[in-house]
């Protein structure tokens, strides 16, 4: 029952000796939270009933849930901790902001106490702390990064890759960014605006929208802004959803048939009720560690709930990549500082250690095919089963691309 004392001591020594990185996160659904608690409870105990989970989780103080070890294709390894802030999945709204900031601060304090050299802020953690880094506890030798630069990198790579798979011409595309004034949204705008025909920016704050539009227009980009998303959704054929939504509630309305839609939110932006039968929807901002990743205890597939192995959100991967690079610096901080040059820099660091764009998938597991698994060489490790929608898979195969999104390192070099 529980952990043996030997393992307690061993882990403590590990913590004392080296914690290269810490990842601060939270669960985006009660199902995910239940799975985490089930692992902690162990197979010898019956899983907690749902009502008990909702009663217990809000009281758990921020703390490490497991140890994480990652490998670089160059042979180096980095060790870290996953620290959960235990923000209840249904309390991400503004009404709970002070409580949630306290939780993230608590998680940050835990990371500092553990001696983490670099800390990545996952999901709402970065949104809560963004622009308020002075609110973090005294840091000693620990640095924090929001991880947003690598998230932007993977979103942009995903859009470009999907356009290639779908034989779309970026230059003739109209790009809509939902949540455009956020750190991720504005970073995507800066990176993609030079490559598309027209940019539509949507966000709640019109003043920030105007500032971003002016910045892009200064570089000769055709930009329009709107608070009313529905005005734009019928005009865009590329959509990036990067809004900070407490739950998947975004409805894009009259979306262009065959539009490419990247949902890069955590929690996801798109409502399960969003009807976009002909759109190509994929979850963006995700990367895959090809040098290996292990959890102790084994949270594989629980903390990284993706249908492919070793897939992680870009924001967390940024800290991991920097740890493998031994570059312990606050690479991403604040809002609105993500530039194409910085994205290129972090992508290069990630690629050096075998961290690439993740295979494409969406809520329907649309792209989880045998071909994808074989491409990754890890067929037996794929989690779960999901039906493929042959229509899209056919289209992708017709495009002549051998992989459903796993980036060929050779292609990167080009």
């Amino acid at each position, binding site marked *: 029952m529980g952990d043996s004392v030997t393992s*307690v001591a061993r882990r403590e020594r590990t913590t004392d000796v080296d914690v290269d990185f810490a990842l601060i996160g939270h669960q985006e659904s009660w199902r995910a939270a239940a799975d985490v608690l089930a692992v902690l409870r162990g197979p010898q105990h019956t899983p*907690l009933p749902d009502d008990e989970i909702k009663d*217990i989780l809000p*009281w*758990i103080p921020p*703390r490490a849930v497991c*140890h994480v070890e990652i490998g670089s294709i160059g042979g180096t390894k980095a060790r870290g901790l996953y620290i959960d802030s235990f923000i209840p999945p249904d309390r991400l709204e503004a009404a709970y902001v002070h409580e949630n900031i306290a*939780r993230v601060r*608590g998680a940050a304090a835990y990371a500092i106490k553990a001696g983490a050299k670099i800390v990545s802020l996952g999901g709402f953690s970065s949104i809560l702390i963004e622009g308020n880094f002075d609110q973090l506890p005294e840091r000693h030798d620990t640095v924090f990064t929001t991880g947003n630069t690598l998230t932007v990198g993977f979103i942009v790579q995903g859009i470009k890759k999907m356009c290639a798979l779908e034989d779309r011409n970026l230059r003739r595309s109209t790009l809509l960014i939902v949540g455009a004034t956020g750190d991720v949204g504005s970073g995507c705008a800066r990176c993609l605006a030079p490559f598309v025909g027209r940019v539509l920016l949507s966000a709640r704050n019109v003043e920030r929208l105007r500032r971003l539009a002016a910045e892009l227009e200064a570089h000769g980009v055709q930009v329009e802004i709107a608070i009313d998303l529905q005005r734009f959704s019928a005009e865009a054929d590329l959509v990036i959803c990067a809004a900070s939504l407490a739950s998947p509630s975004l409805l894009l309305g009259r979306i262009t048939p065959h539009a490419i839609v990247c949902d890069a939110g955590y929690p996801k932006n798109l409502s399960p009720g969003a009807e976009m039968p002909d759109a190509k929807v994929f979850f963006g901002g995700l990367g895959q560690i090809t040098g290996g990743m292990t959890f102790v205890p084994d949270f594989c597939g629980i903390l990284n709930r993706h249908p492919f192995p070793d897939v992680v959100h870009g924001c967390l991967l940024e800290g991991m990549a920097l740890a493998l690079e031994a570059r312990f610096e606050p690479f991403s901080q604040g809002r609105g500082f993500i530039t194409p040059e910085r994205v290129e820099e972090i992508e290069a660091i990630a690629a050096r250690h075998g961290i690439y764009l993740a295979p494409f998938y969406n809520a329907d597991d649309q792209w989880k095919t045998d071909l994808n698994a074989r491409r990754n060489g890890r067929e037996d490790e794929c989690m779960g089963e999901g039906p493929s929608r042959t229509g899209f898979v056919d289209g992708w195969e017709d495009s002549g691309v051998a992989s459903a999104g796993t980036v060929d390192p050779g292609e990167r070099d080009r």
Partner: protein
Amino acid sequence: MEPVIGVSSQGIECTSLSCSAPIWQDILAQAVTGELLAAMNYTSLSEICDDPAEVADALEHAAGERGHAATFAAEGRKIGVEVANNVDAKHWKRLREAFLRCITERDFIGCLIVQEIMLESFAVASYARVGKVAPGGLGETFARIAAEEEEHVDHALAILRAERALDVQRFDDKVHRLHLEVMTTLAKMLAKECKDGHCEVCHGNCVKPSLFEVSLSAAELRGASLQQYLKTLDMLGLPGEVTLGWVTQLPV
């Protein structure tokens, strides 16, 4: 200690004592029982202390806990109820037996872990929650005694940290063993429903389903208590990921 993360009750004060007196009667009965048990534990502890200063300290604590019990009983009389107690009630009896096993083994550190880390976490957190919602003097009394109990914990933490530094593995092993024994019983006490029958402290039916009438809930008291326990273990230096596993494995 006030939980850093207070998430449930917003502290809606019950203004009518007459309607809720039977509920406070049972809450006070649990508190008086807990205080009397603590007094018995400290008296027992004094019997295995070698240092006269430690003996005096334990006896002073015992007197303090008896004083708390008397104060809670007096609060009951103020609202017109007679507050019972039953240190032989099944859960409390088991907690006492766990403590007495440490006494039998002359395990001073084990005694401190059971009383100061486990039982006091429960007392500090639950009294603080009750203190927020109980009306007038009753609430003030719970809040004041919660603060006093917290001072005990601070004192014990210094001793326990020093002990842990001598042999981390042995200390953590002891905490885990006592956790399985004591916290399992406490978790059953704190469960949302008393599935094992009457607790033998409430004067009538189980008070838990009625707690909402005074802006409390069994789930909230359990959550606050386990949160306090985890934080106290953090302060001792036990790895948070390990103690989290321990707590999630407790019965619900």
